[in-house]
């Protein structure tokens, strides 16, 4: 490692103590604030899931009561969706990397960025209070009139928490949009942006446009409960289906908030470890935007059997098949990226390949759900549970792990145990499939979701699923240990241990507080990986190949 890098204060060293961290406006430190909070929520939500899977190992309700079980899946959903998945990659890796990738010193509004974390924490206090006070039993979907008239948990508190973290999303979204528009380095045109930036940008647009609708729906619930204005309650002249329309108008685009950044991570990792340019770069960039736009037009596919008009169902089904196209295009492009590469299989690459497999299978399962007549049968069964876990956990969380392992040396300046990382990746993949594949079969058999007890003939598949959950939990706990160890004891990383392109690899690991000593300029398309003959440089200390063409 070069001595000049060692002597320069990096962002981790400059200013110690809680005050320096809690009042920081450095996007890299804010990313860490988010990372710590989100990790806590991920394991909290995961613990609820493990309890559920243990309960479901037998058909009867023997471990917890029905009320407790209903609270477990409600809190699992609420915490995983709003307090982990929605902010996950954007607020951690996005926060850390966006300025680095576009050659900026920070985000456009550094103080807004810190404020968004405080808003997140404030909102999460409401969620934690509702957990500790006794929970919520509405499911994460808060369907009326169950949530407004019949629920007996801390619904208002949890809804308030979701309402507040929504503002954190909006603030982050605005910040990212302005940053991408205004702070790109000289020469970094739109079609030279890494796909990660494209997907973060698309995500930010969806955050800004969709989240207010969620906030509005939650306010309408309050108006109805407190002032008796009939909006969702049929006794007051309201319509319960209106809530579902409003809820999914946010929550379906929110699915794309959750998955798009994962697609961005994988689009960085696959070319790097294949040493090949991303296949069909423009198609991948534009399909991210297409997904963001079409994602707004498919909410009614959650309501095929809700009583909405059959013709509406047909239109929403059609649009849902349309949104499948850009996702399919991406899968083909990622696969073809490997062609003629010099492929190595470090942990980030393993995670990225597992993402590709799980996202593809989850996406193909989506075809069943978009096909109206089949959806009538599998709607609200474990088939749906399996489908969205393949996308959200198999896809998104796996991509998050790929990204975390890929940029870990950049974020911490340290390496982790490659062996343990590969073992964890393999455990995640095996555990995940064992947990969720049986749920496809259960769903086809007709096992409804959100069931505390079930007919005994379904037990075989439930036992497989519960066994898988144990392996999966191990796969997620391992990184907590070896990454935690690496944080303090890991070997020092070089500035560019993977031999990756991208501006973030051209500065020190960890980067200095101001990111770049010299303003980078860009004269090349992204992923300018050599076609052949490149010596693989993994973990080998080396001087940065200076690729910049000084202005």
């Amino acid at each position, binding site marked *: 490692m070069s001595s000049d890098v060692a002597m320069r204060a990096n962002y981790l060293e400059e200013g110690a103590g809680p005050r320096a961290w809690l009042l920081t406006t450095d996007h890299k430190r804010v990313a860490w604030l988010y990372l710590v909070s989100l990790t806590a929520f991920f394991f909290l939500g995961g613990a609820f899931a493990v309890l559920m899977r243990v309960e479901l190992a037998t058909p009867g309700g023997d471990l917890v009561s029905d009320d407790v079980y209903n609270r477990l899946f409600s809190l699992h959903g609420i915490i995983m969706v709003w307090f982990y998945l929605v902010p996950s990659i954007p607020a951690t890796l996005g926060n850390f990397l966006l300025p680095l990738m576009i050659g900026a010193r920070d985000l456009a509004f550094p103080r807004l960025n810190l404020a968004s974390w405080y808003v997140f924490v404030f909102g999460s206090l409401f969620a934690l209070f509702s957990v500790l006070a006794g929970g919520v039993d509405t499911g994460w979907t808060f369907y009326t009139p169950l949530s407004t008239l019949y629920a007996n948990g801390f619904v208002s508190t949890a809804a308030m928490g979701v309402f507040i973290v929504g503002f954190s999303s909006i603030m982050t979204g605005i910040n990212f949009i302005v940053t991408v528009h205004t702070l790109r380095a000289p020469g970094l045109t739109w079609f030279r942006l890494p796909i990660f930036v494209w997907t973060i940008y698309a995500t930010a647009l969806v955050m800004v446009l969709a989240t207010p609708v969620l906030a509005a729906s939650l306010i309408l619930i309050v108006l109805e409960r407190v002032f008796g204005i009939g909006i969702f309650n049929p*006794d007051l002249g309201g319509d319960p289906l209106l809530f579902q329309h409003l809820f999914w108008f946010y929550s379906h685009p929110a699915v794309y908030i959750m998955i798009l950044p994962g697609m961005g991570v994988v689009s960085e990792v696959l070319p790097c470890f294949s040493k090949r340019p991303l296949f069909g770069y423009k*198609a991948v960039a534009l399909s991210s935007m297409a997904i963001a736009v079409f994602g707004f037009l498919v909410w009614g596919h959650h309501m095929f059997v809700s009583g909405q008009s*059959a013709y509406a169902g047909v239109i929403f089904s059609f649009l849902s098949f349309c949104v*499948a*196209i850009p996702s399919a295009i991406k899968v083909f492009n990622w696969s073809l990226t490997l062609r003629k590469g010099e*492929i190595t299989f470090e942990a980030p690459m393993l995670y990225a390949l597992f993402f590709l497999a799980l996202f593809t299978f989850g996406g193909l399962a989506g075809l069943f759900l*978009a096909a109206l007549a089949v959806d009538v049968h599998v709607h609200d069964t474990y088939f749906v549970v399996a489908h969205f876990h393949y996308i959200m956990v198999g896809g998104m969380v796996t991509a998050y792990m790929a990204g975390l392992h890929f940029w870990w040396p950049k974020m911490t300046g340290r390496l982790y145990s490659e062996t343990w990382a590969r073992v964890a990746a393999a455990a995640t993949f095996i555990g995940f499939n064992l947990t969720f594949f049986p749920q496809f079969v259960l769903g086809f058999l007709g096992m409804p979701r959100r069931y505390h007890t079930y007919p005994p003939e379904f037990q075989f598949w439930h036992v497989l699923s519960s066994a898988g959950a144990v392996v999966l939990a191990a796969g997620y706990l391992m990184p907590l240990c070896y990454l935690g160890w690496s944080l303090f004891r890991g070997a020092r990383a070089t500035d560019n241990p993977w031999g990756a392109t991208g501006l973030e690899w051209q500065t020190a690991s960890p980067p200095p507080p101001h990111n770049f000593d010299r303003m980078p300029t860009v004269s090349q398309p992204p992923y300018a990986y050599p076609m052949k003959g490149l010596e693989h440089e993994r973990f080998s200390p080396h001087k940065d190949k200076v690729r910049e063409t000084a202005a």
Partner: protein
Amino acid sequence: MSFGIPFAPSEASSAAASVDTLFYTLLAFTTALGAFLTLLVVGYAVKYRAGSGADRTGERGRSLPLEIGWTLASLIIAFAIFGWGATLFMRRDHPPADALQIAGLGKQWMWEFRHPGGQREIDELHVPVGKPVVVSLASQDVIHSFFVPAFRVKQDAVPGRTTHVWFTATEPGHYHLFCAEYCGTQHSEMGGWVDALPPEQYAAWLSDQGEGETLAATGEKLFRALGCSGCHGNSSKVRAPPLENVYGRPVALANDATVIADERYLRDSILQPKKEVAAGYEPVMPSFDGLVDEAELQMLLAYLKSLSPQGLTNSEAIR
């Protein structure tokens, strides 16, 4: 060969086989595509692993014909699946004209069914094999969902409106009935069985239940008890629209619009009479919201429907 492990639900309705054909076609297609992509990626991963001697010369980064090709292929396949699924789905809206009409009511946490002959059952539904059955669904509290996996049918029961689900059982048997929409504490206990009986056994079952009053007859009593007949009856002094031959036919409204007098219209006219007033009448009818519960509403509707013997069938009224 399955060692008692279930892999597929039984097919016991006229819709089940056609839904399954689509399902298994999709399964074959997605398995083939998934296997192809897996082999492709694994194949590349092996062939182009670092240090292998594979040929790496050639085109760079993109191939326009290939990209256009797979985009078009995806579009065609997606739209074909869409068309197939939508065609089957539209059948849901068109039950046969001679279908048996059963009223179903969901409430926390049970299903209550009323047969046309007045027979009432809880968490169990007896239906004849080979005859189409329409279950009109209402809910007394929260959203529930009527789900019979063996029939491949599912429909939410939504408070404040009537929804329908229809099926023709093809195999006699004892099938799970689930509530598929999360409805509170005992959601997983809400359900029971659908018993599909051969027609003669069904007839025997019906008579075993005792020849009660028909649903329509109970509705007529209610119609008098609630005082509806005071205005809507023939000898009434108050001018209210007669209700004979109204169901299933178009009604001219005071605001010049026309609606079909389907279940939705009749139900709204009882609970919110000022919403859609028939042309030529004063909006003087009081609301019965809170005075009749969902079960009574279903009886009243059965009575009003019985006043239109030549009225359009339920399915046509929905259309």
